[in-house]
């Protein structure tokens, strides 16, 4: 890496030579200010038709001293402001007051390795700026994206505070490789956004199609989310304070059998006990659900002086979940600095430090495995929390402990410290050329501590308690060198970029587990007498890339972008390491043609088309190698001997998964920019899928990673923004977006994958099959309940009724993919009052409600839902709930009986805010003061019968979707906050 130093030194050295510029002839000087008279530094001041130009200094001053004559036209331009052209005509002092440009067309959009004006963008890109996520619970980046952008589907697998989000940009592209987009925080790529502080974010840009994401090549196949944090912009230091507190709770409980009804059911199953000794009546849902309180404090200072732009923030967030004991806590520090060293050299840094803690909840498990949500539903009400011995009570017939054993009997806490930052150097060492060096790191250290109570829990008592301490450490660095070129001549504008990128990831973890504790007061592993497990592991991976891009526009009408990137990845073998990823896109600004009347209906119309290839290498490190694992140990002579086992089959031909994407679209704004429309249609084909293809296990292996199969996603996206009313006192803006995506597994080379095993040995419920989408639900067709026997009958593959269907009778019973998903935002402002209403919905997606299988199956002594009150009890009963059948799941197979429509429309956010009048707060020395109240998930319209339709027991799985198995539900949140700027 010596070359980096060389480049650095060279840059500085050569740049020094450039600083002595030619002497003035005919000078023009002046100050550039913005509306309120504040000087604007960095305004580009150019003599029109030449390449001569300067930037304003920190006081907004400029001096043009070369090539100026009477007829020179000086062009003043600055991002976010209307460009002004002024004829010199003998003036030697020209002061300019730039007007802010509210037109979206001149909005600057952060794109990969740079920024572009929105009007020049030819790919499919959407932006979300901080306005749309202010005044909302400050938790995670994922929630900021949800419903805000067409083509971006945010799937929150659960509502727990520590739960992550799964984001799919234009569908799921892969089966085994990750389908999550790449996040780039101020130039540092990452996949973990959990600890990023939303209130530090300035804008989010989503690169959706191949031509815009291709600059990220290998990592861009699933789209790219660029996160830009705030920087100082005002010469006067701006101090912001944001404080809120709130409460979250579940919005729905499910009715279960009471003690007497439970007794009836057990008696019917042939189970009896000394019922009189069970006198308790516990509402387990009431026991585990709580009002979770949250508090958030954020403070920041930003400003721009003397060539320095800074942003400093700190914050602290605590949030309790709606389920007992769940919580997160996060502290953030952020420092962003940009420093101009002189007029051609600039350095800067972005530093974020986060300390994060969470306490998770055991969900997606039945009561046998300590699942809390299902525990609350299936633990009978007739027992109390503790028994006489001080232990958690169990089901009267089985030692399934009540759900508090999981929440209170097991301490568990994850702490993570993360340092994410970069430093950069930017040198405009020669006219039109800019060199940028960027070095970024993302280091995190996590510790998971767990302690199982040795006295109060059954398993704890059996093993004498259990202390666990696991650590994980992730280190990452990226080194980027880019050289860009910008020029405009006549009607041509050219921007070109070349660069190299190297990245390295290192992971390590260690774990220790001890048992046999003498007391519950020492909870760390040193308190246990027996070391049960101790291990540590390391791995690493590396990527190297070369990138290039050309943007060309002619006459502001015809736009072209071309990318080419070569990527090398350590996960592939020496001969397949490099992948080559080109892309092209074209834009035509129809509205700039003469035949369009600029002052007419249409303000701007741009047609876009793009094609590109992007790659995916997001699989395990060393995937191509035949790996031999350690730890298959066995004792001889009373001493454990080290043993190895073959872990995988070598595959030297393993190569990049490639996704070929074509996109067409248009951007239209009309009616005086009051209506803007963006529409896109796309087709994505992912070839050579990196698939853990199942092998016959007679081979000794369960699967092998191979490049087989093809997946296609195609879809249409539409985004509308309207300014409905815009008067002095009242404004009303609406945003609407809707996305239609169709996913299809085109080829799997004849394979079928069955995944998503369902409790009670009921088999797998998720099918991956050629010709069907990922997320296909698979099972039996429920026929009904036989009035004579009370048994469920099913429809076999020949259409006949049967009580004993064979596995071949299983068929496709549902599709977890929505027909479409959508979001609507309404922003209303009246005088100081603001109302923000955000609706979000998903239509046509099916859910397999396994929670119901567990609570309506009647196969064991679990408490059941009140639905089973309608069960068959005697011959002749006509019902659709079969009889109770202890130990036999034939009456509760995975079938159409448990498939439900999980479409929903929910009022995701409603915020009412009030900006205190200026005359009032001026006296207090406050620039702006806003108070607000926000409700999230206040109201949900759905036919889904479970706790919540927005869940998936298998989280962000590519293939297993649409399964609810006692999943922590989305919660209803209310917050009240205050936002002050000084």
């Amino acid at each position, binding site marked *: 890496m010596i*070359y980096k130093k*060389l*480049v650095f030194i*060279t840059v500085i050295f050569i740049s020094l030579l450039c600083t002595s510029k030619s002497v003035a002839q005919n000078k023009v000087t002046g100050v550039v200010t913005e509306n309120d008279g504040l000087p604007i530094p960095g305004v580009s001041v150019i003599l029109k038709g030449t390449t001569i130009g300067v930037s304003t200094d920190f006081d907004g001053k400029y001096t043009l001293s070369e090539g100026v004559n009477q007829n020179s036209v000086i062009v003043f331009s600055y991002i976010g402001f209307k460009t002004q052209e002024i004829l010199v005509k003998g003036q030697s002092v020209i002061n300019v007051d730039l007007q802010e440009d509210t037109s979206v067309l001149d909005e600057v959009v952060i794109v990969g390795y740079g920024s572009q004006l929105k009007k020049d963008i030819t790919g499919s890109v959407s932006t979300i700026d901080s306005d749309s996520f202010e005044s909302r619970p400050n938790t995670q980046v994922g929630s900021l994206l949800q419903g805000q952008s067409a083509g971006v589907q945010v799937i929150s697998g659960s509502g727990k505070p520590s739960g992550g989000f799964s984001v799919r940009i234009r569908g799921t592209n892969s089966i085994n490789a990750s389908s999550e987009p790449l996040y780039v925080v101020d130039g540092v790529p990452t996949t973990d956004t959990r600890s990023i502080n939303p209130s530090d974010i300035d804008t989010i840009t989503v690169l959706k199609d191949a031509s815009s994401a291709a600059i990220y090549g290998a990592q861009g196949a699933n789209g790219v989310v660029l996160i830009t944090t705030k920087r100082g912009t005002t010469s006067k230091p701006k101090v912001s304070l944001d404080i809120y507190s709130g409460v979250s709770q579940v919005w729905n409980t499910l009715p279960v059998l009471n003690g007497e009804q439970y007794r009836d059911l057990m008696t019917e199953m*042939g*189970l*009896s006990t000394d019922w009189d000794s069970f006198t308790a009546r516990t509402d387990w849902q009431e026991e585990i659900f709580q009002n979770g309180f949250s508090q958030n404090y954020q403070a920041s200072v930003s400003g721009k002086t003397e060539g320095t732009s800074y942003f400093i923030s700190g914050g602290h967030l605590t949030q309790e979940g709606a389920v007992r004991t769940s919580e997160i806590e996060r502290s953030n520090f952020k420092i962003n600095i940009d420093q101009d060293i002189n007029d051609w050299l600039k350095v800067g840094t972005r530093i974020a430090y986060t300390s994060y803690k969470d306490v998770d909840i055991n969900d997606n498990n039945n009561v*046998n495995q300590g699942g809390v949500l299902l525990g609350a539903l299936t633990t009978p009400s007739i027992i109390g929390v503790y028994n006489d011995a001080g232990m958690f009570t169990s089901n009267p017939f*089985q*030692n*399934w402990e009540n759900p508090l054993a999981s929440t209170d009997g097991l301490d568990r806490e994850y702490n993570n410290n993360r340092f994410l930052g970069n430093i950069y150097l930017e040198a405009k060492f*020669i006219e039109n050329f800019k060199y940028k060096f960027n070095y970024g790191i993302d280091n995190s250290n996590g510790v998971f501590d767990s302690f199982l109570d040795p006295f109060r829990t059954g*398993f704890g*008592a*059996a093993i*004498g308690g259990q202390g666990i301490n696991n650590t994980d450490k992730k280190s990452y660095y990226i080194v980027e*060198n880019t050289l860009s070129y910008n020029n405009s001549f006549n009607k041509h504008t050219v921007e070109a970029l*070349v660069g*190299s990128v*190297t990245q390295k990831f290192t992971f390590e973890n260690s774990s220790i587990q001890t048992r046999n504790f003498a007391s519950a007061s020492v909870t760390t592993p040193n308190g246990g007498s027996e070391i*049960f497990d101790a291990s540590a592991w*390391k791995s690493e991976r*590396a990527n*190297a890339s070369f990138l290039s891009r050309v943007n060309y526009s002619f006459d502001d009408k015809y736009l072209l972008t071309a990318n080419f990137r070569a990527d*090398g990845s*350590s996960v592939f073998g*020496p001969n397949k390491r490099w992948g080559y990823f080109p892309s092209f896109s074209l834009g035509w600004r129809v509205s700039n043609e003469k035949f369009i009347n600029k002052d007419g209906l249409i303000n701007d119309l741009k047609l876009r088309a793009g094609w590109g290839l992007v790659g995916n290498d997001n699989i395990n*490190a*060393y995937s191509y*190698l*035949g*790996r*031999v694992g350690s730890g*298959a*140990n*066995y*004792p*001889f*002579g009373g001493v*454990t001997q*080290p*043993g*190895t086992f*073959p872990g995988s*089959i070598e595959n030297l031909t393993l190569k990049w998964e490639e996704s070929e994407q074509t996109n067409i679209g248009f951007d239209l704004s009309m009616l005086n920019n009051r209506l803007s429309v963006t529409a896109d249609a796309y087709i994505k084909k992912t070839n050579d899928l990196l698939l853990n293809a199942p092998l*016959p*296990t*007679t*081979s*000794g292996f369960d699967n*092998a990673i191979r490049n087989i199969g093809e997946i296609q996603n195609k879809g249409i996206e539409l985004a509308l923004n309207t300014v409905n009313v815009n008067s002095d006192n009242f404004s009303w803006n609406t945003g609407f977006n809707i996305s239609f995506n169709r996913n299809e597994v085109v080829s799997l080379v004849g394979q*079928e994958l*069955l995944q998503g095993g369902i409790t*009670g*040995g009921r088999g797998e419920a998720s099918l991956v099959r050629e010709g069907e989408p990922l997320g296909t639900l698979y099972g039996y067709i429920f026929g009904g309940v036989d009035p004579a026997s009370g048994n469920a009958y099913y429809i076999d593959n020949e259409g006949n009724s049967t009580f004993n269907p*064979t*596995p071949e009778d299983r068929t496709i019973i549902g599709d977890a993919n929505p027909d479409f998903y959508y979001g609507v935002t309404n922003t209303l402002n009246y005088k100081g009052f603001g109302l923000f209403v955000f609706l979000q919905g998903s239509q046509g997606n099916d859910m397999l409600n396994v929670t119901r299988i567990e609570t309506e199956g009647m*196969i064991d002594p679990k408490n059941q839902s009140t639905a089973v009150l309608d069960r068959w009890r005697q011959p002749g009963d006509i019902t659709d709930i079969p009889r109770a059948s202890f*130990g*036999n799941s034939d009456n509760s197979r995975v079938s159409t009986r448990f498939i439900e429509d999980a479409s929903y429309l929910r009022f995701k956010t409603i915020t009412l805010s009030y900006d205190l009048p200026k005359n009032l707060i001026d006296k207090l020395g406050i620039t702006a003061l806003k108070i607000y109240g926000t409700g999230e998930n206040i109201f949900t319209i759905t036919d889904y019968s479970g706790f919540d339709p927005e869940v998936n027991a298998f989280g962000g799985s590519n293939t297993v979707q649409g399964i609810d198995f006692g999943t922590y539900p989305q919660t209803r949140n209310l917050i009240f906050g205050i936002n002050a700027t000084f």
Partner: protein
Amino acid sequence: MKLFKILTLGLLLTTMVGCEDFLDLQPISEETSGNAYETASQIEAALVGAYESFQSSEYYVWDYLLFQDVRSDNCYAGGDNPEVFQIDNITIPATHSRIFTHWSNLYNAISKANLVIERVSNISDPLLTEARKNQIKGEAIFLRAYHYFTLVKLWGGVPLITNTITSTDANAVNIPRATQETVYAQIIADLELAATLLPETYSNDASINKARATSGAAHALAAKAYAQQPNPDYNAVLLHIQAVETSSANYQLIVYNDLFSGNNYNNAESIIEVQYLGGNEGNYGPQLLLPPSVSGDSWRKFVTPSVDLINAFDTEGDIVRKNASILFESVQWVDEFWGNTQGSVIPFSYKWKNANGFASSDNTYLIRYGDIVLLKAEALNETNQLQAAITEVNRIRSRAELPDLTNAQSNSQQVLRETILKERRLELFQEGQRWDDLARYNALITTMNTLVEIDLRTGNQVNYNMTDAKKLLPIPQQELDRNPALTQNPL
């Protein structure tokens, strides 16, 4: 300026050259197929890994009890697992998850053994003597035979794979089933070869001699295979048992209680047993079976001895073995066969004695001499040497403090055959033998269909509805889905 550009370009090119090294990463915490089998200690580690399948395959931990003792007349499912109830009721569908688990675990174990067999001859490490090379090969061949024996008993003819799979091509992995006879032929050939390669003992340390495959173990397993195959060769059985009995390992019957006291493993009667030390080399099986007073927890335990089994002990007046094998205890749960109310006293499978929180140090006998003595009796009887057979049975009975066989128990080959089967049941309960014994004696259908077990919840007798087809397990559906060359057993 030109200079700068040239420098930059030059430096960019330099990165390109450096890249291949930068990207060529080797695993840190794993070895690779290229470097894992070069030295003596590495091949020993691969062999240890092959033995480890006895601990990591759930079949050898406790599912052998489900498929041998629970599926037959010895035990009920107990516990709370619908799939275990299916095993008890002999209604095991092809989609049953446990059969797929066992199928794949057993083939994984075979692949580890195949790997050792293939790689050991190529080791050029001078530390690896020729003698040890042969032993290693013999041990791996023994392990392969052991797992094929398990497979063939459960499923009949299965794919026969004796090399390592290095390609994922369909023709390399889609292996059809071999016939039962071919699989047995391979097992016997392997064992007869292993018997020549393996030592009788490795040292004076019983915890090595009973842990590693020995020639005694190979002969004993060969004897069992010759008896179990579709056309048993009882002369061969006797020859191999003779080899066991003349081994310098000096296998002896010991006091029955000492076999299952929990602190006398690797004893003189043991031929080979699965080794556990407790802790992270612990056996989780015992916790699943042992009553609350021993296991320290209170959930419903698995593998509950049946009424029919307890009756069999009591009819025989077999106190020694009953007490060593079964513990009665009052429990807080209900049992649909023993007591449908809380507080009923029910029996527990009790040959393991220590639970230790899912990390017991109790071993599992794979083959013990007592089994071989009864097999010898069986072979003698089948070869019409009734008196010699009776002598062998009486060796077992006298150890259990039972009287010698009466004339009524031994007065014909057929009567003695049934007597030996009963004796095996009492001797080898909870040792994973019962289903195989009934199969070998062709007694599965009559035994299961005449078995009287009353479900107290309904008061009805359980109908096990045993058929010819149910003698073998269905080929796991998941494996059928993966391998089009496979055919299903009759269902």
